[in-house]
């Protein structure tokens, strides 16, 4: 991430800035693709998760290259620092770090069709990439991104004014997700919810006749 930092500071010598921007893009792209291929090809889920981290760092590099500093940082903090950690945690917690079951596919043509589909999509995307007019929206609707001021500042101003309602909604969403996760993953106390205190008193558990 220092390369992007350097690049942003270089005011003289546009060639150098140009070159460093390209360099950052290419490094990031390499990381992204390596990681993505790793995720879909490696057998061990833990390795997959680590490959995902590589992709995420690559994405963060591309963000920096496009002067989205804050998002790059948040990308690392949230994705690498929390989401993937959660993945790994669950993998280790459940002990599912074995190789994938090599049994026969439930449906025969799943894998070949999927691969063909991927290839077809890729070709289509490449065809589409020959089209010039990628950008067709109205510029600077929600506020200018260039110009003076920190990226964080502009982002914050936009979030807390124009996008306040969505922002609050995502906050609510997070709370709901937390509650849902707690409810889903809580271990059920056997019978504790069905039995009230009065019922418990009635319970007579004879010696050896428990459970």
């Amino acid at each position, binding site marked *: 991430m220092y390369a992007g930092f350097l690049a942003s500071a270089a005011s003289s010598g546009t060639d150098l800035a140009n070159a460093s921007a390209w360099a950052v893009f290419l490094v990031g792209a390499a990381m992204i693709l390596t990681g993505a291929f790793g995720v879909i090809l490696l057998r061990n889920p833990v390795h997959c998760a680590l490959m995902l981290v590589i992709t995420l760092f690559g994405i963060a590099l591309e963000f920096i290259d496009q002067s989205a500093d804050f998002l790059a940082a948040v990308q690392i903090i949230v994705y690498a620092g929390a989401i993937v950690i959660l993945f790994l945690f669950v993998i280790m917690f459940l002990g599912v770090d074995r190789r994938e079951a090599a049994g026969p596919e*439930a*449906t025969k043509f*799943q894998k070949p*069709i*999927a691969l063909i*589909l991927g290839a*077809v*999509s890729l070709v*289509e*995307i490449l*065809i*589409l990439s020959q*089209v010039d007019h990628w950008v067709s929206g109205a510029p600077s609707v929600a506020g200018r991104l260039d110009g003076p001021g920190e990226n964080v500042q502009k982002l914050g101003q936009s979030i807390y004014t124009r996008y306040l309602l969505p922002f609050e909604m995502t906050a609510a969403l997070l709370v709901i997700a937390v509650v849902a996760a707690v409810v889903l993953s809580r271990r059920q106390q056997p019978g504790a919810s069905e039995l009230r205190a009065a019922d418990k008193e009635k319970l007579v558990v004879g010696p050896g006749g428990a459970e």
Partner: protein
Amino acid sequence: MNAAYLIVALPITGALILLFGGRRIGDPLSGWLATIAAGGSFVGSVIVWASLLGRSGADRTVDKQIFTWIPVGSLHVDFALQLDPLSIAMVLFVTGVGSLIHLYSIGYMKGDRSYPRFFFLLNLFLFSMIVLVLADSYLFSFVGWEGVGFCSYGLVGFWFDRETAAVAAKKAFVTNRVGDFGFMVALFLMFGHFGSFSYSAVLGPLASGHSTLAGATATGIGLMLFLGAVGKSAQIPLYMWLPDAMEGPTPVSALIHAATMVTAGVYLVARSAPILHYSHAVLWVIAIVGATTALLAATIACAQNDIKRVLAYSTISQLGYMFLGEGSGDYTAGLFHMITHAFFKALLFLAAGSVIHALNDEQDMKKMGGLRKYLPITFPTFIIGYLALSGIPPFDGFWSKDAILDSAWHMSPALWAVGAVTAGLTAYYMSRQVALVWLGQARWTSDGHEGGGGHGGHGGGEPHESPWVMTAPLVILAFCATFGWLLNAPFGGLDFVNKWLAPVFPSTIDPAVHVGTGTKWVLGIAVTAICFLGLGLGLTAWRKVDRPALEPAVLVHGWYIDEAVSAAVSGPLTRMASAFSFMIDARVVDGAVNGLARFTSGTGRQLRRMQTGYVRNYALGIGIGTAVILAFVATRVGS
């Protein structure tokens, strides 16, 4: 002006609190809460009224938007309140009388099992009525209209564990639905013709005289609206539910009869005056139905033994008067009679409740008598209500009834004659009631009557006066019944109601009633004489005797109309229904339904193969779809 929100908000807040926290709030407190909500609503109405007073007559219509309810295409219906002289006049007496009834109920319902539910329904009832009255469009008003219907169902059937109460509630609801159907048809016609429901859009152009409303459409809308009013206000032929509604607790009867439910129809007709103005036929229909109902109900009332049933039939009769007045084109007279009627009818009902309370739920007048010594507050107030209802000057029933009869004379002397006879009958049956309940010797035994259901707590013993929360409303209402006529006295420039409502009924739709002063005097004296005649007859006939043969069976059974309707509906209709059920339902409808089901299940059986349960299969489907879309885009862009 913002107090207007308060009028609406307080009762619904009270209702919601009682709905969710009623049990926790407990016995007397929830009643007080509801009463305070209702009283606050009344205070709000007074504030709004005062601030409207500060404006000039043409300026007294204010719209208060709450939120947009239905924004569909060109149709735009708001949740909005319209404050104008008519709605404020209505809301003032609705909340005022309503609050008094709330207060009374605190004492009356004491010890009932479902005390909070009762007050929840009362508050909701009040809220619905306020919405009905304050709404700025027919559609929003209809919400209140339906709310009132629901609450009456809930309150009439409040003691739903009694068979009769449940049946009565059902009857009230079903009968009301017939009227609602009329209202809805009126709404459809209205939307078809005006494309809008709001009063300002529908009535505004009509009132100012430039509208292209055809006579036939006006007649249609007017008749349908009146059908709605007939349902709510218990006119012929939809009046049967009202006497049966006596199964509810007495404060409910008072509320339904005096302040809320039945006045809705009167209000609706008054509100729709600009439409009715376009169709003379509708006005005649209204007047004739009103007059007929008045007479018919009065005759039935003469032969009833239940203390509340007498009052119920008298309500129907008085509502007939109101419609007679409105049908004669004198809306102010109709509304004025509604207000005075609210005072004395609420008074009579609450006093009757007090009597019933004192006698441990005894309602049969034949088992009462000589009570005047035991209920020192209820007795005089009841007498005031009695005089007011009988049209004895100077109590306010006289004045409002007089105004209506004047207009009726203007319309047709025949209508006047019916009204005058009804007035005499009214005086007669009320005297009969007074004689049976209060005078003569006691026909009850101090230990003989078994303690009734809900509000026990005082077993045998002599009848005793009710607690102050019950008598205070009586006194207030008696005061109003005595002096309420000063609101619209036809002399000395005291006709406040006329002046107040003048902007709502401009001369274009409400031509002045041309009855000469001399004629008025003659008519007034004639009616008063008839009233005194009825009074004297009733008192002398019923003073001493127990059972004079003055109750023909045909009247006791209300002209057998209930029975006739039952026979008509349950005979041929039932047969027709069963025939349909075999021919059409079993073959055509079931065939179609079963065929559809068979088709669906067959299709499903085939399609089920696609549901493998493997998530990745589904994802594959999504992926193929995406690829196809991408290919499509690629070909389009490439060309």
